[in-house]
């Protein structure tokens, strides 16, 4: 059964159609990659799913329930966790307290939230950085902190918006490892990424969008050889004759 299903979703800002009739679905326990050139509408699609925008048209089903115009905080309680393309740590709180905000989605008790946060941070290798302020952390750790915050809410579906952008190759490998671990634990993950190496290695299936429209969908190898995809990324000259 699919955990997330997007049906004919369109998102329009005035005259601009950012997402055009997009349909896709993610099976439980799988990783779906969403790729596309800059400005293709990936983050907008994400924001519609996460409740930041209400789509102009179309339906979003989460775990069998229509959640089309639900608010982000309700979706979070239903089991959708997300990260942001630009990290948004709570600067005045320590790393641990940042994660606790997420953990409070599952409990009202401060000690339980702290325990949950500590667990998640240990799992992600942030165990020794609990008392640091986000400003004192490296960008890789801050990206990891974003994942930790989302994970602390106990999500069924994790939406990762370019968590690897701006990282060094070794750091990318670490995040890939983390995502694999999560998958092994049964997490369903919807990921936007520009780093091809990462998305090819991780995804069970990839959806490519351009100008808001889906142009290709399939297994990573098939998508990489697709003519339309190559054109979209590299231009007409590179398309196989």
């Amino acid at each position: 059964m699919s955990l997330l299903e997007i049906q004919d979703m369109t998102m329009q800002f005035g005259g601009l159609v950012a997402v055009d009739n997009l349909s896709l679905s993610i099976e439980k326990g799988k990783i779906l990659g969403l790729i596309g050139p800059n400005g293709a509408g990936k983050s907008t699609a994400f924001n519609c799913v996460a409740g930041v925008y209400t789509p102009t048209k179309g339906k979003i089903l989460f775990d069998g329930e229509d959640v089309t115009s639900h608010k982000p905080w309700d979706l979070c309680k239903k089991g959708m966790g997300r990260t942001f393309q630009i990290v948004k740590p709570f600067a005045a709180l320590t790393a641990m307290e940042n994660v606790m905000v997420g953990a409070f989605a599952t409990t009202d008790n401060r000690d339980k939230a702290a325990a949950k946060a500590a667990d998640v941070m240990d799992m992600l290798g942030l165990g020794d950085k609990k008392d640091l302020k986000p400003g004192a952390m490296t960008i890789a750790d801050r990206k990891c902190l974003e994942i930790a915050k989302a994970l602390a809410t106990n999500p069924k579906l994790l939406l990762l918006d370019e968590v690897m952008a701006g990282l060094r190759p070794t750091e990318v490998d670490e995040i890939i490892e983390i995502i694999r671990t999560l998958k092994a634990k049964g997490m369903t993950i919807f990921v936007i990424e520009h780093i091809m190496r990462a998305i090819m290695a991780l995804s069970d299936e990839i959806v490519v969008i351009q100008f808001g429209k889906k142009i290709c969908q399939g297994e990573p190898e098939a998508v990489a050889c697709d003519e339309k995809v190559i054109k979209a990324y590299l231009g007409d000259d590179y398309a196989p004759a």
Partner: protein
Amino acid sequence: MTQNELKRNCLIGLALAAFALPLVVSSPTYLHILIMLFLFAYMTTSWNLVGGFAGVLPLGHSVFVGIGAYTSTVLWLQYGVSPWIGMIIGGLLSAAVGYLIGKPTLKMRGAYFALSTMAFVEGVRVMVENIDMLGPFKLNGPRGLNIPPLPAQEAGFWSFQFATKEPYYYIALTMLILVLALTYYISHSKFGYYLKSGGEEPEAAQALGVNVASCKVAANVLSAFLTSLAGTFLAQLTLFIYPKSVLTLDLSFELAFIALIGGRGSIAGPVIGALLLRPVSEFSRIYFSDTLPGLHLIILGVVLIVVMLYQPRGLTEPLLGLFDRITAGFIRKPQEDTV
């Protein structure tokens, strides 16, 4: 003794010292200055729930002071209701107003919220100045309301009037300690975490399950209730209220100044801010009120500019850091002895 234990002991010591202070200080003038200091620390701490934790800048909190002062005074003068009961009724009324204005305005960002709260308090002030009778309630327009002092033998707890300053001192001190305890409790609770996260990064907080808007409204309601209690206290202390004394922007600004200089969003900030700034206000009023009225606001403005330039998070952090450095020496010694 760890750093935390030391801090706790210091706080207990400070509280005890504050309770014992009237035994030493008997001058009504100085007691009055101390009472006002506690009262402003109390109001700023209440303000801090919204202005500090929730990350917005309310500049209209005097409207709640005014509601508190007017409600209890009208009820006392016309119906003989004890100001203590009037205090609670005023608080509930303020909470309702806090909800009604918070609901639409707290969605606005930055300066727009601050401006809307300023506009609201100015609007209320102009209205009260022009209304003599609000239904059955006598507000007496710009002339304000005078609470006739009771003879010394009739004054007492029930009428919230005391012949000496000491009872006021203890009431203000108790109110301050209670509101600080409440703030401490909130800042360590789920609600506190939600307020702080929503204040800093609303989008990120929403994605983590925080309904930022309703958290802010809830904080505003609580803050309005608490601020309003100070209004009743102020009315009973001065026994004379008029629109320009309790419903003014000056008062709202002063609360914001104290919080910004002391440290927004920290528990000690409002107290440290009030300790530093109230004496400035009081003494400039005592010595310069006829020649340079409003001098205290100029001084506060200059202090604020300097603090914002060099310590934008307020003075609490550096002061606590200094405390840690000084006390670190004391703490290390006993440990070395035991090793």
